[in-house]
C-alpha cells in the first residue's frame, strides 16, 4: 500500500517537473520464495529468515539443487513458501533426515531449518551426532526462546526468569536448569566447520544474519 502511494507522489512530482519517469527495481521477492501470504504472526522472525535463506539461494543460483528439510514447529509448512524441493521430518529428527539425503545425493545442497524445541530439546541427540559426524549440511537454527507452535511453552533455551505458559512465575534455574547453550556445545566438535549466532531484530542485524546464512550455505556448497 505504502509503496504505491509513494510511486504516485513521485510521479506527480516529476510530472510537475516535466521529467520522464525511470523506474529501477531495487527490491523484489526472491525467485525461491513463493508469492503467497505467510501464516506467521506479524513481526515473527521466521518470515525474515525464510526470505534471507531464499535470497542466498538465489544469489548462489542453487535453487534447482537445494533440498530443504522443514521442522515440526511454526515453520512446518515452509514448503508452502520455499519454491524448491523440501522434505518434512519428524519433530527433532531433521538432521537425521538431512544426513541421509545428503549422503544419497552428495551433489545436492541440503539444509535443515529448525526451531529451538526441535533442535535443542527433542532433537538434541540428532543435531550433536550429525555435527559430530561432520555431515556436509547446513543447519538454520531459529531460536525464539519458546515453543511457538504449541503456544509459547518453555524451551531449553528459555532465559532464566523468563515467563512462558509452562513457567508462569519465570524459568526457575533450580527447577528447570540453565538455558542450554547449544552453539557453545556444538563449537567444541571438530566436525563443525562454521557456527555463528545472529539476530533479526534490526535492519543491521538482518544484514549480518544474511551474511551468516550465506557463509553457512557457502561452506557446504564449496565442498
Amino acid at each position: 500500500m505504502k509503496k504505491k502511494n509513494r510511486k504516485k507522489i513521485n510521479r506527480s512530482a516529476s510530472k510537475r517537473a516535466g521529467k520522464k519517469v525511470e523506474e529501477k527495481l531495487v527490491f523484489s521477492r526472491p525467485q525461491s520464495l513463493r508469492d503467497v501470504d505467510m501464516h506467521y504472526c506479524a513481526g515473527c522472525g521466521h518470515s525474515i529468515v525464510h526470505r534471507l535463506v531464499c535470497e542466498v539461494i538465489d544469489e548462489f543460483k542453487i535453487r534447482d539443487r537445494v533440498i530443504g528439510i522443514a521442522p515440526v514447529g511454526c515453520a512446518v509448512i515452509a514448503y508452502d513458501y520455499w519454491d524448491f524441493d523440501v522434505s518434512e521430518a519428524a519433530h527433532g529428527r531433521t538432521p537425521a533426515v538431512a544426513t541421509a539425503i545428503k549422503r544419497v545425493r552428495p551433489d545436492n545442497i541440503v539444509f535443515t531449518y529448525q526451531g529451538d524445541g526441535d533442535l535443542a530439546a527433542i532433537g538434541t541427540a540428532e543435531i550433536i551426532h550429525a555435527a559430530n559426524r561432520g555431515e556436509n549440511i547446513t543447519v538454520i537454527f531459529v531460536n525464539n526462546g519458546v515453543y511457538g507452535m504449541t503456544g509459547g511453552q518453555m524451551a531449553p533455551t528459555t532465559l532464566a526468569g523468563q515467563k512462558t505458559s509452562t513457567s508462569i512465575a519465570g524459568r526457575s534455574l533450580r527447577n528447570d536448569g540453565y538455558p542450554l547453550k547449544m552453539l557453545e556445545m556444538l563449537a567444541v566438535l571438530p566436525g563443525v566447520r562454521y557456527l555463528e549466532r545472529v539476530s533479526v531484530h534490526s535492519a543491521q542485524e538482518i544484514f549480518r544474519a544474511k551474511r551468516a546464512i550465506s557463509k553457512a550455505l557457502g561452506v557446504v556448497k564449496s565442498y
Partner: protein
Amino acid sequence: MSKKLLMCGNEACGEGAVLAGCKFYAGYPITPQNELIAYMGKRMGEINGIFIQAESELAAINMVFGAAAAGERAMTSSSSPGVSLKQEGISYIAGAELPCVIVNMQRGGPGLGNIAPAQSDYFQSVKGGGHGDYKVIVFAPSSAQELLDYTFMAFDVADKYRNPVLILGDGLLGQMMEPVTIIKENYKPHLVEKPWALTGCKGRKPNIVRSFFLGEGALEEHNKRLQEKYRTITNAEVRAQTFNLKDSEIVIVAYGSVARTAKAAMESARAKGIKVGLIRPISLWPFPSKIIKDASFGRCKKFLVIEMSSGQMVEDVMLAVNGKSEVDFYGRMGGGIPTEEEVLARIEALV
C-alpha cells in the same frame, strides 16, 4: 551362477537386501540382529553403498526416511525394543508414502525382556504400532533362504506401492545357520522411476515429501487414498503356504520359525492317523483371511493356532473363521519355544 553358502538368517537377510539393490542402511546394535548390522556394514562398503551406525533407532529410521525421500532403496533393522522406538518414524514413512524395508528379529518382551526368540510383536507389526490409520506390509519368512528371498522381494513390493515393508523374523531365524542357495540370475530387482523423489527441482516443479495436510478435508482425502491403496494390496499381496487342507479336520495356523515346528508336529500326527493340516501365513498383513475362512467351510472343524506369544495372531484367525469352527490356541511366552511334542500333545487333546 549358483552359490551355496552357510549363513545365519541375519546375514541371509542382508544379502537379500544387497541383491535387491539396497544402497542405504542405517541401524543401531541390538541382539539378536547384530549379525545383520555387521553384515550390512561390510557389504555396503564392498558395493559402494551407504552404511551409517546411527546414534539411536530413532535416528536410524529417520535416516531411512531421508534416503527413501531422496529415491534410494533403503533399509534398517532392529529387534523388539528398537523397533518400538522406530514406530513414530514408520508412521511418518507410511504417511509420506515412502518405500523402505524394516527388519524386526523379535525377542522376548515386554520392556527389555530378554534376547530369546519371540513372536510377541505381531500386534505392533500388523495393527500399526505407531499413530494413525496406516498399514505396513509384513512378511514372515521361516528359514535363512526365505529371509534372503523375502527381503529381496520386499524392496520391489515397497517401491510398487510406495509403502514400508516389514520383515518379521525372530532371534531363532536370525541367528541359526542354514544353507542358502543363491542363483544370481534369479535375483533381478525391478527398479522403478521415482519422479516424486527429492533430487533438486532442476527442469521440473519442486517436489515435497510430507505427511502433513492442513487444508480443510485434505487429510481425510489423503487417508481415503491410503485406504484405497491398502485395499489394492489386500487383494494382490496375500501369501501363504498350505498343507493337507483337503482332508484335514484339524488345521494348525502358525507363522515364521514356529511354522516349522508345527509342520513337524503335523507330520507326526498324520503318521499316527490323525488328519491334520497346516496354514502358514507368509504375509501377516495382508492376512490370508480368505484361505482360513475357506478352510473353515471345508472339512476343518478345529483350528489350532501356535505362537511364541500369549495369543496375538489367533485374534486374526478368529476374525477370519467368524465362529464357523472352534479355534484353539497354544503359545509360549518370554523366549519359550513350543516343541514338536507339545504341539502334538495339543493336537491329540483336540481329537
